Each structure stands twice: as structure tokens, then as C-alpha cells.
């Protein structure tokens, strides 16, 4: 941090860019370096967050003048049946994705940890879905799910009758969850792989000498030492799931019969399809509160199962 130790010897009055010893002497040059960031922070974060607070207690359809309505929006949220339905959907999709992503992500991480032949190629393939454009792959999945599409064609020989994946309320959410798992699985894998690689090999060697089986090693060494990574991936995973947009926009538009309308997609629906900016802003604060609550609960519960070395 101490930049200006030798500065005194070369100081010249002509440039504010020249480092000085005293704390506040960097102020002007800091302002130069920070100016674009501060402008960005103000325009893209501070001002929007402030506006969101105002919008939350207002009614505005963009065309007519904005109207202050107090807590009316929040009262409406509390009695909005669709809101509770989207909350259920959000819980469903979050739980489904966390379970599938964690189980499959852990399996993938355990596989990719091994130094087998061609491992670099496998890793690249495993990470491909994560980086590709949601819009592009979601359209492909949409067609793959069609009644006469490739997925049902592959299931046919297994004796499974064609499934109306995206056209029935009871099948739409499982279909969306499968697609999002395919897309986001490797994000979990990356975090868990890094966690696995940080476990010292000596632990396995020592326990092998003591006669521990592979299974015992997994439960007694791998899982406890991986718990911080699992915890971290759980928190960020949930935060990301709570903010999904692209796959639902492309694949189902919240339907059929609201079965895939999550809270985040409901914010979009109210704000930009019904032009109720105030109500959408109020919903977005509810989403923020839910994210905060989830994170806090996880934080408190971590003492029960996360093991820090």
C-alpha cells in the first residue's frame, strides 16, 4: 500500500500524477483514476437503487406521470395469489436445481479429478454448455423436447411413451430443470473440482495404510474437507437460480398455466408486459429480501455441517 516512500527524492511540482508521501496528496490523482468508475457506480448502481426505492412506493406505467402510493404495492404483493404461486415455482426450481447440480456436479468433479488420458479434452467438453449462449441452446432444447423430437425418440426404445415436455404444466418444470442442469452443472463442477484438488493427498495415503476403504475415505475425508466448497457453491447457486431469465423466456414464457413462472420472471411479466413499473420494483425488493434471507439462514446453518480446516 505504501506507494510514496521514495517519492520525496524525485518530487517535482508540475505533476499531480507524481506520488507523494502524505495520505491525502494522492487524492487528486485518485480522482482521475476513479472518475470513470465512480460515474459508472453512480449511473449503474447508486441512482438505479435509489430509483428502485422510489418506484417501490409508486405507481407508474411509463406514459402517465408517476404517482406516490405508499406501501400499497407491498400490501398487494402480500395478497397476490400469482405471487405465491410464483414463489412455489421458485422453491421448486431452486430445490430441483440444487439437488441435481450438486449430485451430478460432485460426480463430474470426482471424474475430472483423475489424471486419465485425454482429460483436457473431457474438461473442455464438460465446460462447453456453461459458456454457450443461452438463447441458442434453449431454442435447441425447445425443439428437442417436442412430442416427435429427439428426446422422445431416444426414450421410445426404453419403453417410455412420448412425453409432452413443454406443453403440460406437470412436465414443463421438470423439463426446464433438466435443461438448466445441463447448462449450469459445470459451474458447480469447477468449484468442487478446485475444492477436491486442495485436499492433501497424504490424508488418503495415511488412511489407506490404516486400512480405510474407498467408501470410508469418501465419507470421512473427501466430504468433510469439501464442505466449504459445497457451502459456497450452494449459496451462489441459489442466488443465481433466483435470478434466472433466459431459459424461461425462450422455452416456456412462464407457461403453460404459469407452471414455470418463477418470481424473477414474474417481475419481468409485471414490469415489462403489463407496464406496472412500481409493482415490479416492489416485487424486486421482495426478491432481494428473499435472497438475503436465504443467505443468512445458510450462514447460520453452516455451523452444523461445514468443516473448516
Amino acid at each position, binding site marked *: 500500500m505504501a*506507494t510514496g516512500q521514495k517519492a520525496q527524492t524525485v518530487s517535482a511540482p508540475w505533476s499531480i500524477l507524481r506520488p507523494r508521501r502524505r495520505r491525502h496528496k494522492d487524492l487528486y490523482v485518485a480522482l482521475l*483514476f476513479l472518475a470513470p468508475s*465512480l460515474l*459508472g457506480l453512480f449511473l449503474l448502481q447508486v441512482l438505479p437503487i435509489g430509483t428502485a426505492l422510489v418506484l417501490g412506493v409508486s405507481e407508474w406505467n411509463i406514459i402517465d406521470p408517476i404517482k406516490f402510493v405508499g406501501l400499497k404495492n407491498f400490501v398487494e404483493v402480500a395478497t397476490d395469489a400469482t405471487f405465491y404461486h410464483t414463489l412455489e415455482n421458485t422453491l421448486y426450481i431452486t430445490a430441483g436445481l440444487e439437488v441435481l447440480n450438486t449430485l451430478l456436479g460432485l460426480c463430474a468433479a470426482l471424474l475430472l479429478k483423475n489424471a486419465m488420458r485425454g482429460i483436457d479434452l473431457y474438461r473442455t467438453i464438460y465446460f462447453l454448455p456453461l459458456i454457450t*449462449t443461452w*438463447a441458442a441452446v434453449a*431454442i435447441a432444447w*425447445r425443439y428437442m423436447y417436442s412430442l416427435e423430437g429427439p428426446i422422445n425418440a431416444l426414450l421410445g426404445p426404453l419403453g417410455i411413451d412420448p412425453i409432452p415436455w413443454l406443453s403440460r404444466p406437470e412436465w414443463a418444470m421438470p423439463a426446464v430443470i433438466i435443461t438448466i442442469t445441463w447448462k449450469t452443472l459445470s459451474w458447480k463442477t469447477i468449484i468442487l473440482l478446485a475444492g477436491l484438488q486442495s485436499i492433501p493427498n497424504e490424508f488418503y495415503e495415511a488412511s489407506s495404510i490404516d486400512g480405510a476403504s474407498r467408501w470410508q475415505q469418501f465419507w470421512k475425508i473427501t466430504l468433510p474437507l469439501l464442505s466449504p466448497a459445497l457451502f459456497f457453491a450452494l449459496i451462489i447457486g441459489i442466488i443465481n437460480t433466483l435470478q434466472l431469465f433466459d431459459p424461461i423466456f425462450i422455452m416456456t414464457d412462464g407457461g403453460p398455466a404459469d407452471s414455470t413462472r418463477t418470481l424473477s420472471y414474474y417481475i419481468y411479466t409485471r414490469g415489462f408486459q403489463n407496464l406496472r413499473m412500481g409493482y415490479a420494483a416492489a416485487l424486486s425488493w421482495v426478491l432481494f429480501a428473499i435472497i*438475503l434471507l436465504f443467505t443468512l439462514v445458510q450462514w447460520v446453518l453452516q455451523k452444523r455441517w461445514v468443516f473448516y480446516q
Partner: protein
Amino acid sequence: MKLRRRETVSLQLVTVLGAAALLFPFLWMISASLQTLQEVEAFPPIWIPEVPQWTNYVEAVVNYNIGRALLNSAIVTTVSVAGQLIVCSLGAYAFSRLRFPGRDAIFLLFLATMMIPHYVTIIPLYTMVWSAGLIDTYPALIFPGLFSPFGTFLLRQFFNQIPISLDEATLIDGGNHWHIYLYVIMPLSRAGLGALGIFSFLGIWNTLFWPVLVINSKELFTLPLALAMAQGQFITLIHIQMAGSVIACVPVIVVFLMLQKQFISSIALSGMKQ
């Protein structure tokens, strides 16, 4: 851990099966993009086209707006990523190398905004862009990508690892802060800049939500928006849409192959971006 030979073989087999499952949607996408309309609508599905229809790609680019969207995406992504790297590296330099009152408080404010979900800020951002009369313009597409608190934070972490003694050597040679930034910090932070570069490239190239809100006219569609909108308009032209989807995926795969190491190590480091 030593593995026995049979275990190695079975592990390899499972890995290959997993890779095949993950690749399947891509393979189907490519296959469908090379089929005729008749083939793509056939049941049971045709896995490999009889004669690859390369003209589907030409048609997607020329007749279905994919060419223009590709150009728009390239412009928006290039300007945004370059701008974000410059803005964030300048800010990160101030937080890492300069001493000024309120530095830690301002940095905390940067971190605090990262906790606010995108959905809270996107409605006001839309109304701001609307009030400024910028709906349906390039600036509306570009300006949200020019700055990110996360980018500033990430680069500061990288800058902090560079020894201060290098700054001092520059000062003894008569340099100033601008010289340190340009000739010491930036060249030594290629890994960090690469990591932020690929994050912001993927984020901006792939983004759909923001363009959906601020763009109405076809001439300004980015690739994801063009693909999403084509879905409504040409619902039956699966093969053309799949050609467009392949075109959208190729650039991200190329960039990913170039910067794979930085990308993976930075996710492991920061957990950002799903």
C-alpha cells in the same frame, strides 16, 4: 490415490458417457442446422442429414437477419469489453496503489452494490434509458457493460499481488502513477485482465434480458435477441434457427478455448457467473 486398471477403464467409460450426454444437444443442433426442412420435421428424427445443407447458413445470415445481428453483437461486445477493462483497471489501480481519504469506505460501497440483484436495478435502468430517449440505440446496448463493481474487485485482487517495490523502481526512474499503471501493473496483470475479459465477453455476448427491454427494431438486434425473436416469427424453420444458434455459439467457444485456464481458475477463485 492409486487406481487399479479395471477401475481406470470404468472411470474412463463413465467420463465418456457423461461427455456424450453433455455434447448431445450441440450435436443435434449442428445436425439439424444441416438438414432440409423435410428432414428436420421428419418422425422419427433423422440423426444425420443425407446431403449437408450448407446453404442453410447462407440463408440464415442473408435472409433471416443473422448477419446483421452478428455484426451488432460484435460491435457491442468489443466496445463494452474494451471499455470495461479500461474503466475497471483504472479504478482498481486507485484502490490498490493510491492512498486517499475514504478509500476503504468507497471500496466497501463497490462491494455492497454487488449484493443487490440485477432485477432491482434493471427496472430503474430501463426507465433511465427511456427518459434519456436512448431506447433502440447502440449506446443503450453498450453503456451498462462499461463498468462492473465485480471487475474492479477482481482486478484489485490481481494488482495487490504485484510487489510495491516495482512501483518504487519506476518512481526512482522518474516515472509517475500513469507510468506505473501503464508499464508495470497492466503488463503484469495479463492473467487478471484475461479473466475479466472472458467473463465480460461471455456475459455481454450472451445477454438477452437487457436487449429484450431496450431494442425494438430488427437493425439493432443482437444475436441472442435475433434468435429469440426469430422463434416467434419463423416457428417452423427449425433448420434455419439452428444454423443461427450454431453461428452464435462458435465465437464463444473459440474465445473460451483461448482463455480456458483463466476462466476456470477465476470461477474457482471468485465463484462468479453461472
